[in-house]
């Protein structure tokens, strides 16, 4: 399948314009890039848990989705879609439907790392053929920027504010991509909306996988991260260049680094433009900044090792 722009632009948008996500939001960019990797000859069922993407694209009586769509609740997009996929297999084998369908979930980090983790794990273990995409903006944005298990250490959120006794979130994020990989499903990847061709390629592989697949895609939110809205893609790029968000894939158990930054930039270059980290640049928080750099370095080495890239 092609990843050439001249071919991709001919694809019909599944997420159409007119939705109510903020201008400059990373989420719809992630959705469009992923769905550019969907095969042309299949029908889609799209599912969302509760979150920014859901509330902004299905305001009754309108829908921005040019495909069948389901929203059930916040913590269960994976099990809801499991049911649809099971229904598809059942009806297909009984000859009650003819068309080929693919099932794709777009869950926020809250709906995936935290409250939806059990449902996700169950669906992966059961092997439903679905593409699960976590559009990761590192907090619960829909409810007003609360911390999630994906929020980076040091970040201000409305439930991890910095104050006299606090420098913001005190814990590092969890390694969800690794947790998903431990389910030994056919395809797992980490992606960023700054590297669109990489996203499309990964999506193509995810849709082709005969089983569950998972993509954790960084999709910055300027409201929550506190930067000018036109810099969304730039922020996503800095996350990759500083190795805060390494791009890799795990294809049938084989780890593969898909982007190697020419020069690994200091984490501060990524943190500096974001208001949520502004307090870290005060003198008293120098140690915190250092510890974030150390965490990123260590994690980057770990991933390189797993991808067979370490010296």
């Amino acid at each position, binding site marked *: 399948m092609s990843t050439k722009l001249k071919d991709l632009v001919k694809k019909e948008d599944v997420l159409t314009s007119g939705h109510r996500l903020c201008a400059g939001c990373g989420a719809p960019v992630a959705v469009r890039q992923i769905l550019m990797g969907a095969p042309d000859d299949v*029908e889609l*069922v799209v*599912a969302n848990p509760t979150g920014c993407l*859901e*509330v902004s694209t*299905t*305001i*009754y*009586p309108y*829908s921005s*989705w*040019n*495909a*069948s*769509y*389901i*929203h*059930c*609740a916040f*913590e*269960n997009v*994976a*099990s*809801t*879609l*499991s*049911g*649809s*996929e*099971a*229904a*598809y*297999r*059942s*009806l297909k*084998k*009984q000859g*009650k*439907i003819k*068309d080929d*369908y693919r099932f794709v979930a777009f869950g926020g980090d809250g709906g995936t790392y935290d409250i939806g983790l*059990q*449902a996700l*794990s*169950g*669906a992966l*273990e*059961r092997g439903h053929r679905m593409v699960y995409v976590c559009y990761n903006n590192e907090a619960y944005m829909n409810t007003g920027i609360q911390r999630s298990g994906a929020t980076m250490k040091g970040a201000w959120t409305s439930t991890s504010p910095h104050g006299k006794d606090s420098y913001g979130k005190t814990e590092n994020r969890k390694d969800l991509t690794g947790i998903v990989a431990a389910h030994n499903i056919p395809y797992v990847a980490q992606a960023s909306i700054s590297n669109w061709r990489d996203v499309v390629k990964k999506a193509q592989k995810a849709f082709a996988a005969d089983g569950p697949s998972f993509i954790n895609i960084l999709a910055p939110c300027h409201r929550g991260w506190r930067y000018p809205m036109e810099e969304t893609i730039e922020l996503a790029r800095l996350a990759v260049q500083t190795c805060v968000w390494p791009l890799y894939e795990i294809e049938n158990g084989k780890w593969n680094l898909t982007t190697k930054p020419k020069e690994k930039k200091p984490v501060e270059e990524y943190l500096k433009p974001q208001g949520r980290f502004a307090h870290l640049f005060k003198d008293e928080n120098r140690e915190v900044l250092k510890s974030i750099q150390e965490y990123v370095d260590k994690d980057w080495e770990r991933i390189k090792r797993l991808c067979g890239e370490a010296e």
Partner: protein
Amino acid sequence: MAVINSKTVAIVGNEAVAEAMRQINPDVVAAYPITPQTDIVQAFSAIAADGLVDTELVNVESEHSAMSACIGAASSGARVMTATCSQGLGLMWELLYIASGLRLPMVMPNVNRSLSAPINIHCDHSDSMGARDSGWIQLFSENAQEAYDNIIQAVRISEHPDVYLPVMVLMDGFIISHAVDRVDLIDDEKVKNFVGERNAPFTMLDPNNPVCVGPFVHSYYFEFKRQQEEAMANALPVIKNVSDEFEKISGRTYGLFETLGMEDAEFAVIAQGSGAGTIRHQVECLRSNGIRAGMIKLRSFRPFPAEELIKALSGVKTVAVFDRSTTFAGGMGGPVFNELRSSFYEQEAKPLMVNYVYGLGGRDLSVELVKKAMEEILEMNSSGKAEQKINYLGLRE
């Protein structure tokens, strides 16, 4: 009526339910085990493993996911079933409202069991009563036969275009689920024809007409809820009609409730579930001694057949409501009592009403206890006064 059934067997309630599920042959079953429902899932797994059904069985990791998967599958045009009880039903709570709010037909046996804490695995009706305002139809069963019959009828009720609501079939944990009972099974072919094929008006798997299930609704929410209320009212005649049709293939009749001696009763007892058997025995004893006792066994708790009940009870002086759960409203008694009492509010002639809360956590409803209650009710009926409105039957005090 002549016995139309092909096969009379001795099986436990859970097996009877699994047998009904085999005959219904749902497209998708997503379920999670919990005592005393477990055997339903196990028996159906064996049926699926032997290739006796077309069902895709989804062995989910929780009841929350069971109901979520049912919602996903029903939205995709599938005929869907699950089964649960107690803590499992509690875990499903938010999804129960989503299933009914999305107007998705599905059938779920709930093997009534108490709710923690303290943990207890035995029968009472607290679990399903907790879901009484969730928009599900709720049909009680007295024994394994009724559980079997209710499951088959529930498919038709749930999928009726005037209704489109999920149905919970209630059966008492252990007392029905685990006790061997005589069950008249209906021919496979007859059940198949009776339930027919699901004909969903909208499905996510129609490429010519993609649908948006579960949108974000600001401005029409109230109207959707009003429609649900109407659908529940529509279910009253549908339950009766389906029951009439069911009689043709089974020889067994069901309505919204069953009556005994109500044509001349001076006082009446109302009960639901397996307790009705013990109560019926006692009512019959009284009647054979010339005492004009009557009884109503409530089958349909949701919808609540208020008008029909008022009519049936119009001739009695005293009504005693047996509730196998309580409302924790602070001494207001059980849910059936409260709803029945409120149904009578507009009536000029109101019977004296008393409540017997019994059987919580599986406390046995013995013949002696029912006898004792009957004596009290008789006394109240002749004096026209009730010293104690809310009574706890069989409580160690």
